[in-house]
């Protein structure tokens, strides 16, 4: 029903566009040069006044309709259903809505619920009819009013362009809204979590076992929310990943930028960048299927006891994933070092590797540090590889051969199970998300500032 309405509005708007344009022609009486704007703009002007207010009304109407109708239906329920408490009432409302949309209802629908559902349906019908009448009259009124007021000296283009600019501004503010949305949603839930678990326990506690007890006498459900083992596990895996990715990525960037001829460069660089385009779930499968058994078996040959979900396997594969990230960022940075520095070193008799190590590398260091920081932030936030290849148990260990768990793994396991939304277990995921967002944000800001400063230095 609302979709039909929106479609009608769009058709009306295009009609208004056509009429507006024709009106402009007829007002000009053949002398188009007398018009302030091109006829197209008069058409757009009419179309906007026809469609925009009406569409805004539809949007607000739909946003508030549901809550209002639910309130009305609940108020109309018999008293004995009111006395059962909010939780129960919410379930009841859910049932009513399910009944309306024709879904399976969790219990036998009694007469009261049936009546309420009928009432709900009735109210929705009334509301939609009212909405249709109001918006259509707005649309038609807007169009006719604008049509009658079209005059040659009217500044249609300026109005249309102002509205268009407003639209552009709204679009570009979505980036800010997203950030605000992330901060608010994560922060809000995390604050509720910190009401039941103190911040200090969360940040400094050494034990993580989020299984909260449902019954008070339950065994093995301590509900400890000490996140230190998660932070340690994340850092361990990121460290392993960086010790794979930084040397390989950096050396290949140096080779490609300083030694390789144009043909080698043109063929090798895109090949390495394929690694960056492979979805992380593929890396996770590769880690779990190939690398983890390989690490375990080769550890077994050396007489080492390696867990089948060792931090080493996950870290190695994550490192492979980050290689192209480090190499392409460092490549940019190395190429930005001015040729004069190289020529100076060569003229003093330095070999190429000496030039690279003693001159280019120090000159490019800030940019490389920025690239590495970005790569670390990437490693900390990486999810699928560790979900598939790292463990679930929170071990506080620095041994890469043991299984550890990470912040992202815990967020996924806490949120993909079946549980009520306001249990500390679920909320803990948002607290972890807050930590993740804060840490990566700081790393990103530092890295981006460093890289930007560095670029400006040589421009």
């Amino acid at each position, binding site marked *: 029903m609302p979709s039909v309405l929106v479609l009608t509005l769009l058709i009306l708007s295009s009609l208004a566009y056509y009429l507006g344009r024709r009106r402009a022609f007829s007002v000009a009486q053949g002398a188009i040069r007398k018009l302030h704007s091109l006829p197209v703009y008069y058409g757009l002007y009419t179309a906007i006044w026809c469609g925009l207010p009406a569409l805004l009304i539809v949007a607000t109407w739909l946003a508030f309709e549901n809550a209002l109708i639910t309130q009305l239906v609940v108020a109309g329920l018999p008293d004995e259903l009111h006395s059962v408490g909010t939780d129960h009432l919410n379930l009841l409302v859910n049932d009513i809505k399910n009944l309306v949309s024709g879904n399976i209802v969790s219990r036998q629908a009694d007469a009261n619920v049936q009546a309420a559902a009928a009432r709900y349906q009735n109210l929705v019908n009334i509301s939609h009819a009212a909405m249709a009448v109001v918006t259509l009259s707005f649309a038609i009124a807007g169009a006719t009013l604008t049509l009658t007021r079209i005059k040659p000296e009217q500044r249609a283009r300026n109005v249309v362009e102002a509205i268009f600019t407003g639209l552009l501004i709204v*679009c*570009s503010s979505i*980036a800010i809204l997203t950030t605000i949305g992330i901060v608010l949603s994560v922060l809000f839930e995390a604050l509720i979590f910190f009401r039941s678990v103190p911040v200090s326990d969360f940040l400094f506690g050494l034990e993580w076992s989020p299984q909260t007890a449902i019954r008070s006498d339950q065994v093995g459900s301590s509900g400890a929310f000490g996140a230190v083992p998660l932070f340690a596990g994340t850092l361990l895996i990121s460290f392993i990943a960086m010790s794979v990715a930084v040397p390989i990525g950096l050396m290949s960037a140096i080779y490609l930028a300083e030694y390789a001829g144009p043909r080698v460069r043109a063929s090798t660089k895109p090949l390495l960048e394929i690694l960056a385009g492979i979805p992380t779930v*593929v890396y996770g499968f590769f880690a779990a299927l190939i690398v983890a058994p390989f690490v375990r078996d080769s550890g077994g040959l050396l007489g080492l006891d390696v867990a089948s979900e060792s931090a080493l396997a996950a870290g190695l594969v994550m490192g492979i994933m980050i*290689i192209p990230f480090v190499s392409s960022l460092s490549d940019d940075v190395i190429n930005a070092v001015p040729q004069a520095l190289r020529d100076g070193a060569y003229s003093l008799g330095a070999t*190429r590797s000496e030039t690279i190590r003693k001159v280019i590398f120090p000159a490019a260091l800030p940019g490389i540090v920025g690239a590495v920081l970005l790569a670390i*932030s990437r490693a900390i936030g990486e999810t699928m590889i560790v979900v598939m290849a790292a463990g679930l148990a929170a071990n506080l260990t620095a041994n890469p051969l043991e299984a550890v768990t990470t912040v992202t793994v815990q967020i996924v396991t806490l949120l*993909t199970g079946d549980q009520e939304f306001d249990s500390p277990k679920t909320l803990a995921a948002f607290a972890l998300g807050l930590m993740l967002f804060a840490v990566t944000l700081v790393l990103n800001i530092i890295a981006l500032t460093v890289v930007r400063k560095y670029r400006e230095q040589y421009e």
Partner: protein
Amino acid sequence: MNNPSEIPAQDPAASRQRTIDIVNAGMGKRYAAERRFRWYGRLAIGLGLLFLTLLFTSIVSNGYSAFMQTFVRLDVTFDAGLLDPEGNRNAQQLATADYGGLIKKSLRETFPEVSKRRDKRALYALVSSGADFALRDLVLSDPGLIGTRQSVWVPADDDVDMFMKGHIDREALQTDRRIKDNQLAWLDRLQADGRIEKRFNTTFFTAGDSREPELAGIRSALTGSLLTLLVTLVLSFPIGVAAAVYLEEFAPQNRLTDIIEVNINNLAAVPSIVFGLLGLAVFINLFGIPRSAPLVGGLVLTLMTLPTIIIASRAALKSVPPSIREAALGIGASPMQTILYHVLPLAMPGMLTGTIIGMAQALGESAPLLMIGMVAFIVDVPTGVFDPSTVLPVQIYLWADSPERAFVERTSAAIMVLLTFLIVMNSLAVILRKRFERRW
């Protein structure tokens, strides 16, 4: 100065000799260091390429066999008394008849010596539990089959499939094998009779998810991916381009636009899982959009890909030379007309390239979608953006977790399909860039 004879450097010939000696003495070492350094570089690139080939070969070698599936030929008597006792060809009745019984009967006829109950069960296990549906579809499409005896190819069980593909070792101890000794003997006999054959696995492309590997397919996940991507494209392309146009062409240089810029760069580096948390808290809990729907997935992926598209679009706008703008403004176009009619068309290839790359990212993304419930077991193909669905990467994640051996090859095959899509999209982006790239 007072005593020149004590300073050897005063003698030009001797000093030249000595410096060059020092330099030459170190030369071998320095050249060796140079060669080593070069080799480190080659080694690094070689390792990177090695990892790449390792990844691809392991996926392909695990996955190519999933495109074939073992089928068993059975002689089935479509018993009229069993399927259609009243003889009125009622579709409802035909759809619910006992086709499993037909298959069991046919298996018993092929191996009449099997009599013990336990052995019979092992015999029935050779054929997929989806075989009855294959028979049902046959009968429903052609009720004339009833009462006849036909030779029908039905899918084999996944263990049989794995055995035929050589993943189950016949020499292993019986207790370690999923195919027992008596089943082995039956399979050998079937094979000798030409009743076992590997055929192209169409089920993999036409079916939804299933607990039985031989019946599982990627169609529902692929449809879910396409729907999600469609929502993402419809939202992120116009918004991204509009934002880029405003920031690059209209925005005044002030604190607010600075903040927006820093913001966009930061959002590009925020972990994807955080976007999933946002989607869960805002789109599902606040706005009440149904969980697992492609709409929510598309919204979350839109927010995730917007920075990529905005950054690429801004670069494309930047590369349009100012002379174009000046010429348009000079003949009396308004700034908005200049952008819409002259700058935007020239920047469009670059913007499209950025969008395709963003879409490729979104297609491969799975972590945020786990947060918003797109990790469900979906059998039916979703038909709209409100239907519960899953996407291809998440399907891969789900299958990777399944214990059956046959799911390993299906996971790899699904990865091959996903990678094919990504390769096509990225090559499209490259072609677009090559074809329309203009040097001013």
